C-alpha cells in the first residue's frame, strides 16, 4: 500500500509499505494492505513503517491517520526518525518534565512533555 507521512512543513515520507503500526488515542493499531477505511487521532508514540528498504521507526507527536483505497496518510505535527533525534535534548526535556510532574501530578502539559521525551529516547535508542 502507499504510505504518506506529511507534516505541516513538508512531506516526510512517501512510498510503498507492507505494514504500518501506529498509536491512536485508543491504543496501537496496525494496517496491512486493503485495510478498511479508517480515520483516527494519533497519540504521542512510535510509528513503524515496513518500507521496501527496511523498517522505519519514527517518534510521532500526535496527529491523524486516514486510510482509504489502500492509501495510508499520516498527518503529524512532529515526526522524527531515530537519526534525527537529539538524544541529549530529549534527555534534558525528560528530566525537566519529570521534575514538573513530580511537583504537580496534575500538570497535563508536563505529562505530555514527559511522554514525548520518553518516546523520542525510546526511538533513538531502539537499535
Amino acid at each position, binding site marked *: 500500500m502507499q504510505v504518506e507521512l506529511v507534516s505541516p512543513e513538508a512531506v516526510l515520507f512517501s512510498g510503498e509499505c507492507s505494514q504500518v503500526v501506529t498509536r*491512536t488515542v485508543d491504543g496501537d493499531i496496525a494496517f496491512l494492505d486493503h485495510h478498511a477505511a479508517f*480515520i*483516527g487521532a494519533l497519540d504521542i508514540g512510535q510509528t513503524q513503517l515496513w518500507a521496501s528498504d527496511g523498517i522505519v521507526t519514527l517518534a510521532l507527536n500526535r496527529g*491523524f491517520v*486516514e486510510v482509504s483505497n489502500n492509501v495510508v496518510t499520516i498527518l503529524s*505535527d512532529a515526526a522524527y526518525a531515530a537519526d534525527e533525534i537529539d538524544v541529549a535534548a530529549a534527555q534534558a526535556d525528560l528530566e525537566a518534565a519529570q521534575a514538573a510532574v513530580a511537583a504537580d501530578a496534575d500538570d497535563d502539559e508536563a505529562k505530555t512533555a514527559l511522554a514525548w521525551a520518553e518516546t523520542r529516547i525510546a526511538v533513538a535508542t531502539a537499535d
Partner: protein
Amino acid sequence: MASGQERILRRRIRSIDATKKITRAMELIAASRIVRAQARVRAARPYSDKVTAVIANLASAGGEADHPLLREPAEVTKVAYVAIAADRGLCGGYNNNVLRATERAIAADAAEGRDYELVLSGRKALGYFRFRNYRIAAGFEGYSDQPSYADAQQVAMAATELFENGCQRVMLAYTQFHSMGNQSVAIVPFMPLDSGEFDDDDDAESSLGGPEGGYEFEPEPAVILERLLPRYAEARLYSALLESSASEHAARQRAMKAATDNAEELKTNLTRIMNRARQDAITTEIMEIVGGAEALAQTGGAVDLLSDTIEARTVDLFRARE
C-alpha cells in the same frame, strides 16, 4: 586640480555608486529568497490539502459536530483582524498595502457598529497600528523572512483566543502570492471556518475521496474533528504567512531593482554634468593663460619663459582630467 563644483559632483557620484551596490545586493538576496519561499509554500500544501480532505471525509461520514469553529454567528458585534506584514521595510508598497486595507476594513466595520480586535504579525504592522493608536490584542514579530509552523501556531492561538472570547468573526489580511510579478492583498474570513469548503469533494485529493463503505473511527468522529479543526486553522494561517513572506521578498526585489536602476540613471546624469563642468574650467583657464601670454608678448621680453609655463600648465590640466 578639480574645481569646487567638480569635487562636489564627484563626491555625490561616489555616494550614489555605494548606494547602488547595496540596493543591487538586496535585490539579488530578495530574488534568491523568493525561490526558497515559493518552495516552502509548495511544501506546505500537501498537509493543508490532506487536512481539508480528512475534514471533508469526516463531515460526509456524519462527523458533523456542532463545533464553535464551524458555527455561523447569528450576529456579529466584534471582528478580529489578523494582519500579516513584514518585519522590515524597503519593500515598496508591500507593508502599506496590506495595512491600509486592514485599516479600511476596520473603518467599514466601525461604520456598521462593529468593534475590532487586532492580531498583528510583523514589526511594521505593529509600528503602523501603534502609531495610529489602535488597540492591539496581540503582536508577533521576528520571523517574516522565514516563518515556521511554530510561528503560525502562536498567531493562530492568539486568534482562536479572541474568537472564543467575544469576537464572532476573525478575518485574515495578508498578501497572496500568485506569481513572481503578481501579488495581491486579500482579506478573507478565517474563523468560523468556511464549512462550504469541506462539502465539495472535488477539492479533496482523489486518493482521499471517501470510500464506498464508510469509515471506521477511533475515537468518535466528533472527537477527531475537535482535534482536527484547530490544525486546519493553523495550516491555513501557516500558508498565509508563507505566501506573505514570498510576496514580501518579491516586493523587495522589485523595489530594490527600481532603486538600482534609479541610481544608475542618476550616476550617468551626474557624470555628464561633472565632465561638462571640468571642461568649462579647463577652457576658462587656457583662455586666461593665452590672454595673459598675449598681453606679455605685446610688451616683449620673457616670451620663451612664458611659453614654457603655458605648456607645463596645459599638461597639468590634461592630467587632471584622468
